[in-house]
């Protein structure tokens, strides 16, 4: 058997693996690596981690592909990024504009049938309990299955163009009534997207898939 260069890469990249006992590096570090900006002392451990952890190998290849396919190098913004910014913002009471978060204590039940289409990668966690079919714009209630250990939720409702229409943080129930004025100017048949983030006791955030919704 002869392994040409392409086969060697392909076999290497398709191997599944994890790195037990190692914490996966922040995605930001892979972004820096492909730009030649990783902290020198972290370079070795960062690259070696991708040898054992297939998910981080995917992350590294994704970062490389993005960097090499853009028209020119990407500038790293000095803006603070990451969840910290988001959750500090929520804690400061910025929850009115664009997202919903909810906290729950009960275990998540299994999925139900007849619900709306779920979009997003997190199916199997929180699920929409909004019935299928067009929903009325007055009295619209977003409901979801609880997430174990959640203290509160953040809920976000957005247009298909991802313009945030309504956002509510600090929700303690597993449902939220959307104010009619938020939906008043939307056309009949408008498709909306919504999602829920569960904030856990240790500050970790678990995100639901994005759910579809159609207005009457």
């Amino acid at each position, binding site marked *: 058997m002869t392994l040409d260069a392409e086969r060697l890469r392909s076999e290497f990249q398709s*191997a599944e693996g994890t790195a037990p006992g190692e914490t996966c590096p922040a*995605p930001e570090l892979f972004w820096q690596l492909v730009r030649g900006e990783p902290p*020198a002392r972290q370079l070795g451990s960062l690259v070696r981690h991708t*040898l054992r952890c297939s998910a981080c190998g995917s992350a590294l290849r994704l970062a*490389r592909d993005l960097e090499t396919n853009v028209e020119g190098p990407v500038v790293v913004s000095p803006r603070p990024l990451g969840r910290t910014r*988001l959750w500090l913002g929520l804690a400061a009471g910025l929850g009115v504009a664009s997202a919903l978060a909810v906290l729950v204590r009960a275990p998540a039940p299994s999925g139900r049938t007849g619900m709306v289409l779920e979009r997003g990668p997190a199916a199997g966690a929180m699920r929409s309990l909004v019935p299928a079919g067009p929903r009325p714009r007055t009295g619209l209630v977003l409901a979801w299955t609880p997430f174990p250990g959640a203290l509160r939720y953040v809920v976000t409702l957005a247009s298909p163009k991802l313009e945030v229409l309504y956002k509510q943080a600090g929700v303690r129930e597993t449902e939220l009534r959307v104010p009619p004025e938020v939906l008043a100017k939307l056309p009949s048949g408008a498709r909306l997207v919504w999602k829920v983030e569960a904030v856990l006791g240790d500050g970790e955030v678990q*995100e639901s898939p994005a759910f579809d919704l159609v207005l009457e």
Partner: protein
Amino acid sequence: MNGNSRASSRGGSGPAEIRALLLRAVARHCPRELHSQQEDLVHTAWLRIVEREGGEDFTRLEPSYFWRVAFTVVIDEIRRRGARATQARALEALPVAVAPGPDLGAEIRDCVEKLPASRQLPVILHLQGFRNIEVARACQWTEKRAENLVYRGLEQLRRCLEAKGLDAP
């Protein structure tokens, strides 16, 4: 190239272009089980960007900001899903499909583990798809040095695989 000229060279990258490129990149590099959710994955990433900005005007943001946040959230989702799949397999004790013949990927990794440190890094990057000039940039070496170390590392890797009966010259 300084930061300003870099910025101007990317001035045409709007959210739509970035989203399209992200979609293609995710399609190429996401784990196989995620392929059916490529678009949803990017969609969710964008929703999170919007959420962070709280409906502010996107045009004031550097394109690099979109790139970096979108990349980060996509990777978060890949990891989350991978962890769930691993956990589900463990809980359900599903039988693991055994492919006939050697696990080439595992054998290649084993051989890479045995390379000397100086060659291990460039070989890993090469196997992850990096060209020599990209290896050089990541490691902050000259391209010549990267090329040399990749070449010698791959030679050593092939010898290791040959010894395992997995690669014939």
